[in-house]
């Protein structure tokens, strides 16, 4: 803590130049000292105990810093003028102690934030004007939740005078009427308030959000944000409050840059896609989730009200300590604990609202639909099927409600969370209960999702031992129809509106379009499927502080997970014909997994003058055992679903012996960090993992990273920047991260029995299938570079983070493309190379007036992946019309197809231009670009048409409060994505269900509309249909960019006085709305719809056909109460 060197040659003169220099020096020192905070979040007292005789101020300052954490700024020259002091105080307020020390000194001090600035007492200032008469100012200081803040420093700017607030947060001080009060409190943003002659003041201090001194949870520990060297973003409850999301994953959408959440299917209980920094591997891209230090938890089963913080570890510097699982990023979830020395507090947070289905496309009246149907036939030389009289009859018969409307209805959604927490001197506790219930918009019996959560957490200090434990239980239940949403939607939407779902007798009708099924009948009477999860997650840890910065810690945790799903198909008879569910299936599937995680760590943190050193070394084991069983019966009892005479156990039934597995991972990990003068920080992390997924000799992998940071504005030459702008830190990291997300036992050739394989004389026999081993299987490695900067500027009102990353993943674990001649598939191989490159920016800005306060928070990130090498050169994957490709130089699984080049307008045009083999088009059909100019359109004319993964994902929040009212508006979206939609929403009178056209499809080609959006109407099987719609082309590529008003909240908090009368600490009521408005490149479908999961595997094929549960729009209200 020496700054002599810095201050040499800057004698305290009164010139402008030296003032600036001095100020620069001063700020540099502040930054320097800030950096000396310890890794652990230690809480400082503001009281001081000192007993010294005839000691230098310097020594006293040192002691005070030790006790309070307050930093001193001074230069040695300055202190040479000071005399030595005697002092003897016990537990005295800091200010009192300082006042004593400075009494009679030629020096004054002022406190700015948690820094004490020592300056020369300004005796020579001329009496410029007669000072105004002093006035007595009374005031009260509260935090943003309205709680009184005791011990807040209230200083008159420019003098050493000041007071502190009392236990009620009140203060009184006599000041010149034109004085400015500097109000500061540790951890809060300091305010300068001009008195302007007022005699009463009401002051609200705000916690310094995301400022450099926030504590951020990192792998196996916590660090001050200012001391981070890796790329870590922290999400706090404020980011998700009041948003009516059902699970954590949905709530995280848009809150952190490059934490990419997609909800391909918005139906209750459907899973979401999540990625950190996009897609970096051709294998599994799922980030690692760590809950309270235990890896592998299930984020979607957590109670959102239990979340204290979520750290998003993005780069190698942050994530390497998780070694073999960290290449896709890590989410570190920390749950709430009780606080020490807090009276028991109960909080309730609940929302209730109604979800409305918003369908973005609509049918035509049946008679118009019929006219276009005729046109589609006559265009290709076929006879019309509706005579004028038929069309007249349809017109007179009128239309029934569109089936899709009939099977959807508004549905409630609600959540209720109660937390009881508190703590004494040595222990804390927290109990929480939560329930959330989202009903389905489909009609029918109780479809929807609910989840109940219970959590108990306690901590206790016993001497040098700190112990803590958490036990939580979650139960959820998803009840859906027995048929599948996609087909229900499709059957309902593509039936023309001249048909009815039910007759006057209530019978479910079939018709000439829907011959077999009636979606209403299936929903109301066709049975159901339920899926439950029961999850018990617990962790217990104990930490021993052995003194001198040395501690050891052990943690044991685990997750016991049960999943049960039950299918019950009930037979429904339709009229005049058709049956649903005549198999009368009853299916019962059960699985359980037990995961355990043991960690043992030793940690050492010490400061030696300018040097700070931290060391951590640990070992861990993670093991999973899992088993499952299922039984499926057909022809069960129609009332109870139980097996009866005639029931048959169907194929696929399995006992627990069929697929149990055990996996294990042993690890040694560590971290070493060092900082010099708290300005230059460097950190080394590693993990050495051994996995049961790989053969002996190949199973151990070493994953190191090195990262460094430079607090640039601590440098003296940048002191001006710091003064006028703020703090800036520059970071960089490089490391190797791993990925082991592959199936088990792949290094062994596996022979697995399956039945029935075949039969002889009507008796089934088993067969054996085999998968050849890849004995050379080993880790996937991602070399990750990151550079970033953090800034906190404009008096802590604006924080800014910027990162660039570049990740090259090699030895990607993927199943090799195999010639068909090989005759089988192969397990994963370490093959392929892929780059993922991008950036992210986040900005937060607070604009606090006295009554009107606003904040802005925005984030945007981009990730662009590109295949670098792929064994076999390239691979095309077909799905319906569209194909995706994996080949070097283009994004992973990019869409490929033909490119449209307008339409054939004349027969002459057709004669001249390249065509598809075997197809004779007509005017109005699509012309495709003949890429290689060989006169024929074939596989050599495929273009890369788009990247299915979202880019430029962003979120924007605006918040404002005026007195007791608050408002927040949250937008979220995607800047660029290519979306593939095929099927009836694009292709009118589509192949197999050629009975309808929707309103959005009417801009089709005709001689008078030669530049239409869609080609000429044509009939199933015709060459035109083959030419225009059976080919994958950019006809099917839509712009999936969107911006969505995801959430709006308007709240009112009861004034402090009123809520105190009601004996509540805080009461806030609010209105909240979700998915209120969307602007999108695709108009007839929700732009979030995608067929891909987070690893770009096509797992939601129905979404390509637009058969997606309509995105619900939610309107509701909520209540937050703290007792």
């Amino acid at each position: 803590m020496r700054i002599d060197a810095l201050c040499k040659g800057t004698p305290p003169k009164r010139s402008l130049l030296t003032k600036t220099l001095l100020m620069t020096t001063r700020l540099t020192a502040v930054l320097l000292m800030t950096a000396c905070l310890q890794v652990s979040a230690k809480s400082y007292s503001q009281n001081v105990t000192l007993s010294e005789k005839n000691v230098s101020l310097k020594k006293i300052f040192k002691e005070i810093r030790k006790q309070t954490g307050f930093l001193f700024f001074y230069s040695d020259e300055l202190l040479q003028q000071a005399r030595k002091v005697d002092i003897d105080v016990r537990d005295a307020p800091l200010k009192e102690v300082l006042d004593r020390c400075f009494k009679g000194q030629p020096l004054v001090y002022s406190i700015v934030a948690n820094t004490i600035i020592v300056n020369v007492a300004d005796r020579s200032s001329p009496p410029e004007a007669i000072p105004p008469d002093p006035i007595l100012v009374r005031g009260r200081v509260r935090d943003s939740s309205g709680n009184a803040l005791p011990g807040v420093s209230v200083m008159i700017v420019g003098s050493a005078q000041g007071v502190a607030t009392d236990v009620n947060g009140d203060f009184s001080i006599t000041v010149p009427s034109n004085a400015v009060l500097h109000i500061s409190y540790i951890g809060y943003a300091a305010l300068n308030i001009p008195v302007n002659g007022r005699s009463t003041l009401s002051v609200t201090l705000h916690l310094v959000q995301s400022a450099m001194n926030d504590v951020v949870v990192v792998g196996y520990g916590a660090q001050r944000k200012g001391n981070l060297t890796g790329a870590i973003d922290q999400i706090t409850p404020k980011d998700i409050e009041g948003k009516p999301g059902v699970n954590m994953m949905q709530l995280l959408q848009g809150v952190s840059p490059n934490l990419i959440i997609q909800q391909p299917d918005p139906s209750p209980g459907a899973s979401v896609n999540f990625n950190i920094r996009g897609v970096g591997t051709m294998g599994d891209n799922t980030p690692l989730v760590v809950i309270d230090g235990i890896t592998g938890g299930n984020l979607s089963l957590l109670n959102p009200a239990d979340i204290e913080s979520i750290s998003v570890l993005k780069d190698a510097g942050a994530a390497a300590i998780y070694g073999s699982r960290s290449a896709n990023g890590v989410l570190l979830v920390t749950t709430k604990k009780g606080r020490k020395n807090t009276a028991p507090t109960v909080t309730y947070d609940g929302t209730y609202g109604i979800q409305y289905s918003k369908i973005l496309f609509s049918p035509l009246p049946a008679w118009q639909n019929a006219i276009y149907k005729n046109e589609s036939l006559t265009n290709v030389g076929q006879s019309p099927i509706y005579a004028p009289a038929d069309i007249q009859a349809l017109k007179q018969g009128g239309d029934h409600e569109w089936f899709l409307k009939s099977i959807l209805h508004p549905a409630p959604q609600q959540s209720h969370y109660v937390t009881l927490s508190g703590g004494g001197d040595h222990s804390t506790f927290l109990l929480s209960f939560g329930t959330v219930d989202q009903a389905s918009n489909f009609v029918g019996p109780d479809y929807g999702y609910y989840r109940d959560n219970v959590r108990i957490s306690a901590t206790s200090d016993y001497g040098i031992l700190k112990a803590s434990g958490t036990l939580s239980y979650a139960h959820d239940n998803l009840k859906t129809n027995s048929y599948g949403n996609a087909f229900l939607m499709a059957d309902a939407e593509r039936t023309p509106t001249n048909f009815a779902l039910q007759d006057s007798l209530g019978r479910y009708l079939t018709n000439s379009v829907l011959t077999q099924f009636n979606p209403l009948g299936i929903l109301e009477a066709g049975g159901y499927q339920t899926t439950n999860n029961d999850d018990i997650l617990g962790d217990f840890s104990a930490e021993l502080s052995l003194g001198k910065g040395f501690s050891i810690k052990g943690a044991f945790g685990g997750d016991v997970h049960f999943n049960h799903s039950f299918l019950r198909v009930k037979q429904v008879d339709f009229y005049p014909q058709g049956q649903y569910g005549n198999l009368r299936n009853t299916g019962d599937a059960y699985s359980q997994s037990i995961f355990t995680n043991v960690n043992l760590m030793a940690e050492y943190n010490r400061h030696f003058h300018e040097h700070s050193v931290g060391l951590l070394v640990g070992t861990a084991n993670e093991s999973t055992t899992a088993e499952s069983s299922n039984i499926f019966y057909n022809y069960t009892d129609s009332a109870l679903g139980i097996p009866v005479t005639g029931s048959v156990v169907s194929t696929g039934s399995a006992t627990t012996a069929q697929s149990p597995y055990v996996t294990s991972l042993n690890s040694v990990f560590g971290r070493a960090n060092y900082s010099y003068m708290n300005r230059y920080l460097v950190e080394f992390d590693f993990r050495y993992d051994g996995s049961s997924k790989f053969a002996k000799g190949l199973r151990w992998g070493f994953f190191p990273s090195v990262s460094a940071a430079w607090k640039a504005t601590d440098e003296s030459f940048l002191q001006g920047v710091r003064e006028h702008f703020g703090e800036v830190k520059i970071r960089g990291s490089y490391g190797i991260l791993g990925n082991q997300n592959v199936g088990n036992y792949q290094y062994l050739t596996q022979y697995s029995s399956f039945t029935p394989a075949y039969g002889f004389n009507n008796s089934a026999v088993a067969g054996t299938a085999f998968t050849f081993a890849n004995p050379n299987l080993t880790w996937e490695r991602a070399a990750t570079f990151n550079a970033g900067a953090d800034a906190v500027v404009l008096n802590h009102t604006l924080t800014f983070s910027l990162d660039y990353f570049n990740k090259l993943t090699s030895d990607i674990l993927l199943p090799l493309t195999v010639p068909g001649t090989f005759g089988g598939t192969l397990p994963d191989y370490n093959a392929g190379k892929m780059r993922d490159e991008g950036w992210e920016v986040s900005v937060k800005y607070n604009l606090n007036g006295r009554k009107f306060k606003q904040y802005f928070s925005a984030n945007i990130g981009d990730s662009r992946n590109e295949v670098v090498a792929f064994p076999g050169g390239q691979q095309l994957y077909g799905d319906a019309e569209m194909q995706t490709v994996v080949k070097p130089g283009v994004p992973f699984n990019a869409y490929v197809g033909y490119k449209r080049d307008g339409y054939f307008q004349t027969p002459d045009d057709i004669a001249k231009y390249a065509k598809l083999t075997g197809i004779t088009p007509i005017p109005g059909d699509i012309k495709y670009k003949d890429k290689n100019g060989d006169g024929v359109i074939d596989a050599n004319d495929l273009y890369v048409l788009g990247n299915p993964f979202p880019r430029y994902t962003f979120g924007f929040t605006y918040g404002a409060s005026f007195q007791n009212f608050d408002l927040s508006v949250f937008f979220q979206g995607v800047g660029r994505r290519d979306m593939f939609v095929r099927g009836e929403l694009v292709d009118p009178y589509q192949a197999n269900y050629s009975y309808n056209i929707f309103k959005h499809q009417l801009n089709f080609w005709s001689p008078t509309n030669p530049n239409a959006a869609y080609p000429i109407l044509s009939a199933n099987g015709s060459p035109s249909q083959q030419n225009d719609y059976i080919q994958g082309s950019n006809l099917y590529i839509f712009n999936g960019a969107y911006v969505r008003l995801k959430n709006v909240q308007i709240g009112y908090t009861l004034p402090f006085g009123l809520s105190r009368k009601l004996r509540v600490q805080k009461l806030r009521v609010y209105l909240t709305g979700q998915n209120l408005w969307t602007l999108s490149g695709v108009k007839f479908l929700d732009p979030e719809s995608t067929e891909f999961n987070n690893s770009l595997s096509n797992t939601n094929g129905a979404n390509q056909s637009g058969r997606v549960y309509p995105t619900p729009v939610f309107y509701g209200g909520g209540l937050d109460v703290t007792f």
Partner: protein
Amino acid sequence: MSHRNKIYLSLLIGLVGASACQKLDQAPTYEYTNLTYWTTPDQASSVLNTAYSQMLPNDYFFYNEGLSDNAYNGRGDADNVFSISSGSFNPSLARFDQEWDAHYQGIKTCNVLLDNIDLIPNYPADQKTLVEAQARFLRAFQYFQLMTWFGDVPLFVHDITLAQSQTIPRTPRAQVLSFVLSELNYCQANLPVNTAVPSASLGMITSGAALALKARVQLYEGNWAAVAGICDTLINTTTYGTYSLVSSYSNIFSPTNEHNSEVILDEEFVPLVRTYSDLFDFIPISAGARDNALAPTQELVNDYLMTNGDTITDAASGYDINNPYANRDPRMTATLVYNDYVWTNPDGSTQIIYIKPGSDPSSARLNEYVPNGGFSSPTGYYIRKYYDPTAAAGEASGLDLILIRYADVLLMYAEAENELGQMNAGIWNQTIGALRVRAGFTDAGATTFNVAWDAGALRSIIRRERRCELALEGLRIFDIRRWKTAETVLNGYPHGAQYGDPTIDNGFVRLPPRSFDASRNYLWPIPTYELEQNSQLTQNPNY
């Protein structure tokens, strides 16, 4: 550190130490590995069962008819038969690669079995030979299917590595052919005759099957003498099994008459357990179908003779275009469904299938022909053959699919003898005559041999007979390819019944046109994907 704290420390370390780590050496408990598999004869049998299951995908059996002029795939593009028959495809069409894969997967199973069977200790030699012979038959059958579609294909008789599969060239078709024939010779010598198969093993491959397959292979080559010789052996001796015609044509395909005397090779299904549901999209809608995806064509219907043995175009045939289904070959009724057909429901009751538009007295009109886009048949005909009244919901049927039946042997014999110029009344009576009598023809004009027929006339008669007898059994596409008539019958419009615009094609429903390019389509293209994966592969001409 206080004493007490030291205790806690030890406890803590003890706790962590006690929760012993799972070992990193883990092996599956629910399946065998290469170290543990090849230990008992049952393990070999189990792999053999897999090879049986890969014999022929049931979808191909049915939908291949849509590749020919027998049926039209009007809904979807099952197995790409619409794309292929309409000519609008290129070598990257999925079916080509799926076909390639399906056969090489079967070959792999056989090769892995044959390569490893010797690892099994104490395997009785006769049992082992039996398993080997079945595997070699199945492998030969796969190669036969491959060479029939693709011509030259990579031929190998031991399991190949990934690296080998990336460089293996195509073997000339002639070598593949001679391999198939020599393998079948081995099989015919080492497999039991059908009458020696124990009832529990019914469905296993026999020496007769090996011989019959050899006849089919030679037939496709046009090696008439070989065909005639093999068929003669099968017909006139019992050395390789005992076969005869089932007395009722429709009873050949009855679930109560599986493994009948006519079955030489079949693919086995097990009711409720191993089933296929193709008929769910074939039979009349009112009989329980979901919709129609494959419908017989007017061209097939037209080829059925009148009961007097005349074709419908013969002046004296008595054919009435207004009552077109009267007095026709009885096999037509057993094969397909036409307007006013009397359908027998599973419970024995009957219903009339009203297909002609406007003829259904009920309002449902489920089966009626609807031009373009209906759920009903696009041709006005439905499929009856292989309808299983005992099928489970969704027409999930366990009825075995017959791949080679004795009637085929008779037809091969007749064709070969005729091509050899040796057709006579005796052979006629033994073959075409016998089939017609069995079919229910009674008119001598249909059943007796006419010495006035020359070889060309006989060729037409035999080919028509083959088409009608074996309709919807998946063989027509191979026949028109080997006869080189595909370029004639697969170009132009297929038709449905006479429910269309009377000004077009005499009112017979005109369906989207087919296209067949004789310069290249007699061989399928080598799949694009395979060419990409293996630079040694070459493409067939003109693709």
